[in-house]
């Protein structure tokens, strides 16, 4: 559905180029829930922007290709779209739930205006009243009352605002929904409701969902496949359950081991050190400086992401 090949993307800053995504190849399959996990600054949000084709400002694609393949809803034919035209697919085929529901919605405009005025001209031609009825029906599906449409964002709770964003993203029945940390600022009870809602929509619409979260528990709960990002690279990717049961990369293993389990007081340890500076990344494996299994080769040669068992790949000399 979406194929990234050897993508290098990053930000131009006054102090130099920061390669937030470095030589990443990734495929998003039809009808799957793919998770992307990693620490802050590992490039996971940038990766989502690359998949969405949202370049501009300081973010640019330096190398590699991004290609989308969708079936045209009218003719039923497969249409291949390159990175330059991904923007044409926004909302209808690919939609995006950005991070931070409070800062994404316009604080001085009612929800109805934000939902309806943001629609493409062809859709708005159906008439405001007809559209409002359609939107109300859709809101009911995400368990929001119609009165939400007349509210301003600050009058809604964090969970309701997040539901509004989910509704906006799913309204056109897109083939792919990208969600960047959709539950980070929410309480654990509300978080569960939003995650269950995202899964329910994905199952009903039979589309693909890519979810970015730093919380491995979230990925364990809802994803089919999981990619672990570290310092701009994907260091491991595979079926979620296999990845948790048999992590291949020392970073994945350390991440999983560092998490406390409810009611378990077995001593657990954080990962010492910090990720490398992406403006000046080290040669060799980027995790080498923090890795407990490090060998000489790790400092010299950057490991490739190699499939170890079907569908499960890791970028480690020792995997």
């Amino acid at each position, binding site marked *: 559905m979406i194929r990234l090949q050897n993508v290098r993307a990053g930000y131009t800053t006054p102090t130099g180029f920061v390669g937030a995504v470095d030589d990443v190849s990734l495929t998003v*399959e039809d*009808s*799957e829930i793919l998770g992307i996990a990693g*620490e*802050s600054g590992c490039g996971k949000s940038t990766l989502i922007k690359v998949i969405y084709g949202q370049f501009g400002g300081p973010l640019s694609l330096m190398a590699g290709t991004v290609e989308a393949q969708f079936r045209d809803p009218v003719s039923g034919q497969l249409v291949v779209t390159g990175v330059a035209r991904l923007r044409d697919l926004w909302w209808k085929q690919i939609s995006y739930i950005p991070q931070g529901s409070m800062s994404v919605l316009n604080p001085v405009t009612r929800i109805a205006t934000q939902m309806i005025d943001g629609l493409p001209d062809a859709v708005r031609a159906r008439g405001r009243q007809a559209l409002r009825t359609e939107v109300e029906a859709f809101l009911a599906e995400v368990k929001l009352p119609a009165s939400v449409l007349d509210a301003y964002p600050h009058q809604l709770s*964090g969970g309701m605002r997040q539901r509004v964003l989910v509704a906006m993203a799913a309204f056109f029945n897109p083939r792919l929904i990208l969600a960047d940390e959709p539950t980070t600022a929410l*309480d*654990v*009870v509300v*978080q*569960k409701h939003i*995650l*269950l809602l995202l*899964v329910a929509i994905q199952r009903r619409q039979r589309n693909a969902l890519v979810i970015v979260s*730093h*919380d*491995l*528990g*979230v990925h*364990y*709960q*809802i994803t*089919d*496949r999981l990619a672990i990002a570290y310092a701009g690279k994907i260091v491991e990717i*595979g*079926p*979620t*359950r296999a990845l*948790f049961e048999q992590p291949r990369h020392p970073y994945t293993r*350390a*991440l*999983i081991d*560092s*998490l*406390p*389990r*409810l*009611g*378990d*007081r077995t*001593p*657990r*340890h*954080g*990962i*010492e050190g*910090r990720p490398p500076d992406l403006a000046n990344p080290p040669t060799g494996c980027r995790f080498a400086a923090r890795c407990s299994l490090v060998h000489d080769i790790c400092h010299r040669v950057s490991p490739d992401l190699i499939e170890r068992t079907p*569908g499960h790949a890791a970028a480690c000399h020792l995997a």
Partner: protein
Amino acid sequence: MSAVSLLSLHGVGKIFRRGGLFSRGRIEAVRDLSLTLPAEPSIVAIVGESGSGKTTLARMVLRLVEPSAGSILLEGRKLNGRRAERLPDLEFRRRVQPIFQNPFEAYSIHLPVDFYLFRTAINLGMASDQAGAMPVVEEALRSVGLGLDRVRGKFVQQFSGGELQRIAIARALIPRPRLIVADEPVSMVDASLRMTIVNLFTQIRARSGVSFIYITHDLSTATYVADRIVIMTKGEIVEQGAAAEITANPRHEYTRLLMDSIPRIGARWAELGEQSDTTA
């Protein structure tokens, strides 16, 4: 007779006024709350969601907010009420220290972080000048696994969130307090570093005899580190007990809801059914 408890709250309440000067709107953030911390060093976790009143409780214990009702006693001496009756400020700050949620906002970008360490030592009477404060600061940094040369002359932007939170703990340790109140100390820190911070609480309790009030929304780290768990919702304590007892046998409906909502590793939510493994 047992020793005087470290901290005791009796019928504590807090009402905030809402709206403008003439508004009659009120929010009861904390209601009739009673809680005791034993004289022996312990870690007590206060767990609840946003709006549960847990931060208001922490701020009342830190004397940043005056309770509207009830009394708070530290080793039998009053913390709230009339100035003449309560524990003097300097004595209070030597005994009770805070750690705040956002390590990036806890320090000025214009001052090196070691300034805060030396200033705390001098202000709280641990030393009369910078040279005299040196051993105190070094000892505090050592107990969080940092050396003075890592910190000296460096600014907030030169540290990770985890390091800043360790420095915040070191600063809190300088007056050798009896109690540290940590308000969501790891929620802004990467998951990979959280345990490094939380483990320090256990080490410091054992080594220095400091008690902790650990305010968090995360029941998993709470059950990992705390001796006792207090569950709050809507300004009230709904359940409290030993950490093992709460997880093994949650009695209140809200505790069960919190536990059931945690995205655990190893057991999927019942609502999701079995995993549809598209890649198998």
